[in-house]
């Protein structure tokens, strides 16, 4: 894996419209910052190699290497990537959560793992004047406040970086696919630092079809009224093609087509819908508002999940084939689209200048040839 530095990040990622604003480069050093969802660079760093480049999910990501690091096998051409099992899940009574946007699986898992000591702190994302900002929670009671779906880009990995710098070593992180990829890279000690231990004890990934440019979305929300009183933000399942927003005293409906205009270009290069490098990936179960789909990927994930079920924090069900198929199809489509766009821009296995992905050619070929398949 070729680790380069900030010059390559500036030219290849920030100035090329590839940055997803995940925050992986922020708080590691004084040269990166994030503001209203956008990652920017202060001054310039002259180092040839840096963690910014090593952790960035849009720079020299060797999918086979990360896959081997986490799963012990090379990158899978399957729609969901590598995984062990897949369930429908929702928060159980023992989780002690109040009302929540969808099924509360993630909050329940976080609460369980913290109460049982699998993690000492959680890095989540909360709302700050319409923008998503990372938050470090050290007490289970704080987990619920940072729950709820987020639709705009937020620099969550900045929070992970800050948690690590502060000395926390059993971190649970909840992150979108690009953020999860960054976290996975940092866990692999790419700069071969001495005395390195993996600070991430539990990684939960969130499904993501796309995200919205934070400042544009906030501007849109502001034009609707006082966004400090937004109580609910939701995209109902098809056949609806709208976003529903509920403020203190009004309800708004925005056509999804209008929303789609706010998707940053960077998202169109993304090939990962289900956060393939997490311990457990959780997302919307189309047609079932009170349930999530949970993809269990690692042994650690399986252990925590099964214990949470036993303890009554989670309630699970098997998912029928017909329910998995649409998710697999959507996931495969995104994978193909993202990889195709990257390939078109010579950003896969490129030897000239910047590359985003490195991947076995045969795997790449089979992704492009393959249709949607299931487990």
């Amino acid at each position: 894996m070729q680790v380069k530095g900030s010059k390559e990040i500036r030219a290849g990622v920030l100035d090329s419209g590839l940055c997803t604003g995940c925050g992986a480069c922020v708080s590691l050093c004084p040269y990166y910052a994030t503001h209203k969802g956008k990652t920017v660079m202060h001054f310039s760093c002259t180092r040839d190699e840096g963690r910014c480049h090593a952790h960035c999910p849009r720079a020299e990501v060797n999918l086979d290497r990360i896959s081997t690091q986490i799963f012990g096998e090379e990158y899978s051409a399957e729609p969901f990537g590598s995984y062990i099992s897949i369930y429908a899940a929702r928060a159980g009574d023992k989780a002690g959560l109040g009302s929540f946007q969808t099924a509360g699986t993630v909050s329940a898992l976080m609460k369980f793992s913290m109460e049982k000591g699998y993690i000492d702190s959680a890095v989540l994302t909360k709302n700050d004047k319409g923008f998503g900002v990372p938050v470090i929670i050290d007490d289970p009671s704080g987990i619920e406040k940072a729950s709820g779906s987020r639709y705009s880009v937020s620099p969550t990995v900045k929070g992970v970086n800050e948690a690590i710098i502060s000395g926390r070593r059993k971190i649970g992180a909840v992150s979108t696919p690009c953020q999860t990829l960054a976290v996975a890279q940092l866990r692999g000690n790419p700069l071969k630092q001495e005395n390195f231990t993996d600070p991430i004890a539990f990684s939960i990934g969130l499904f993501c079809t796309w995200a919205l440019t934070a400042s544009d979305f906030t501007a849109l929300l502001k034009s609707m009224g006082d966004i400090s009183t937004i109580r609910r933000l939701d995209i109902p399942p098809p056949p609806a093609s709208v976003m529903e927003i509920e403020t203190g005293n009004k309800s708004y409906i925005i056509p999804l087509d209008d929303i789609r205009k706010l998707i940053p270009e960077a998202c169109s290069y993304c090939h990962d819908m289900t956060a393939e490098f997490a311990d457990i990936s959780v997302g919307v179960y189309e047609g079932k508002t009170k349930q999530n789909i949970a993809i269990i990927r690692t042994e650690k994930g399986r252990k925590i999940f099964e214990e949470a079920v036993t303890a009554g924090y989670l309630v699970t069900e098997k998912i029928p084939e017909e329910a998995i198929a649409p998710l697999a199809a959507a996931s495969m489509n995104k994978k193909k689209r993202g990889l195709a766009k990257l390939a078109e821009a010579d950003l896969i296995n490129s030897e000239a200048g910047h590359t985003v992905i490195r991947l076995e050619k045969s795997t790449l070929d089979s992704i492009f040839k393959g249709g949607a398949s299931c487990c």
Partner: protein
Amino acid sequence: MLLSNNEGKEFLLMGNQAIARGALEAGVSVAAGYPGTPSSEIIENLASVAPDADLYVEWSVNEKVSLEVAAAGSFAGLRSLCVMKQNGVNVASDFLLHLVLSGTRGGMVLIPCDDPGAISSVNEGESRYFARLMEIPLLEPGDFQEAKDMTKWAFELSEELGNVVMLRSVTRLSHASGNVKLGALNRTKPTAEFNFSGNLLDAKTGPVITAPVPFRHTQQQAKLKKAAALFETSPFNRYEGPEKPELLIITSSACYLYSREALRVLDAEKRAGILKLGTTWPLPPELLKKHLAAAEKVLIVEEVLPFLEENIKIFAMDSIDSIGKIKFFGKNDGTLPSVNEMNPDHVIKAISSILSIPYTGMPEEYEKSGQILSFTKSPNRELTFCPGCPHRASYWSINRALTLNGENGFVCGDIGCYTMAILPAGFGTIKTAHSMGSGTGVASGFGKLKSFGMKQPVVSVCGDSTFFHAGMPALVNAVHNNSDMLLVILDNSGTAMTGFQPHPGIPSGAAGNELPGLDIENICRSIGAKTFTADPFNIAATEKKVLDIIENETGARVLIMKQPCALSPEKKGKKKYNVSVDSSICKGTDCGCNRLCTRVFRCPGLVWDNAAGKAVIDEIICAGCGVCADICPSGAIKRSEVVL
């Protein structure tokens, strides 16, 4: 020395000191100016003796007003002096245009000090052309004795003609020193009275006006003709050399000394002659004719533009019947450069080529060797802000706020120490830089371009002295026209770049006397701008404030960053903090730091110890402001308050 009689005694004086002494010997009563290198020492010298010399000395708010203040002295019958650098004449030129029409009473001398080569300027403009344009006499001292003697004479000349006389100096005279024999100092105390009850057309006793213009203009031109006649016998025009020189050099100012030097070096004193003109406008016709008739080749040596050259060529054309055809050498034919300052080597090269005298100033091999050795072994000295300078901290915050905002915002710069933000010293923050007050004027314009799709936030910076000089009208313009821009006033309590002179915001005057200081914050609010303040040394709060004002406020806004200059009397030599680096924490070149303090912040007090791979504080240079402690990403820089 300045006020001592000491007639006949010789001293080593700086050109500006000699000028000040000349003014005192002439009995000057009023002296006004605006700080500008290389002119400032003239006013400073006069200010230092003002209390004991019945002299009123003022640092006016700008050059235009300084000329008006001096003119008032003249109208009231006092001898008065106005001093500025070259581009100050541009600022004063509107009033000057009218003053030369109305005429003057008490002797009045305007002294611009030009800066050829822009050694301490951002232009190498010419003040000489203004004398011709404004149709007033132009005097140029050729050495230090003349700097004194001609200044004294200029007042007499002004009174004889009834108009302003321009005496022009250059850096190489103003800031150089030479032997000067003092003259008599007869200080009288004249009474000021403005006489205006005479006939409307009487320049001496009527109102001081420019109407009727053709009438006054005719009088003005007659004065100039009178001057030309007087110049025929002036001792400041001298010829030295053979009666019939192979080459006649006509020169003035410091170029006279370069020309002499060149002839000596080339051993050509018997072949070429030098006509040194001390009165360069109007040209003394008979004197010129006499010397032009005796020569077939003429080299004109002067700074920057061919002012003298073109005037002489016109004269030569008009007099061609009596002087014959002449081959001229100068700037228009490329013999001498018309950019950058003159020096002996340019003149040597010119004469050596015209008279075919071989000359090697420095052997080629030596020159090459010297260049390589110097380039490889003597590291360049880039200009930077002093240790403890508030501007470094201000630009740090402004730069970072604009980056965070992410809309490609920019800063329009202005004139002062803070202009150095075009360099790495100020992180390259400034993107336009022209003349005094222009940053805010330009920003006022940029702030109206939203309707053309411009999304970039507009910021201007302006010093406290610059604000009074020319920034205020620009701010009025921005407020009145609803321009969307932020003016950041970098208030360091003084006119720092030129030597820390006072200005209207400071409660003292040129002579150290107590005066009311105007409050910039109140002025901005009264103008109607949304006004905020910040302490630039508190970088976190200042950055936040700048970002907040850019993103959440609209219209014409002002943010005053107030922190005194490191060289101000209240700060100089006094440390607020003892600062040190804990090398066990310092990350140096590691990922996570990459020497942010030494490589980017670049305060001279922060030294990079390459051998140890750590940053170190140079305690002698460090001013103890403590800002770097907040820069350090690892918390390795420690500061502790100095307990007195």
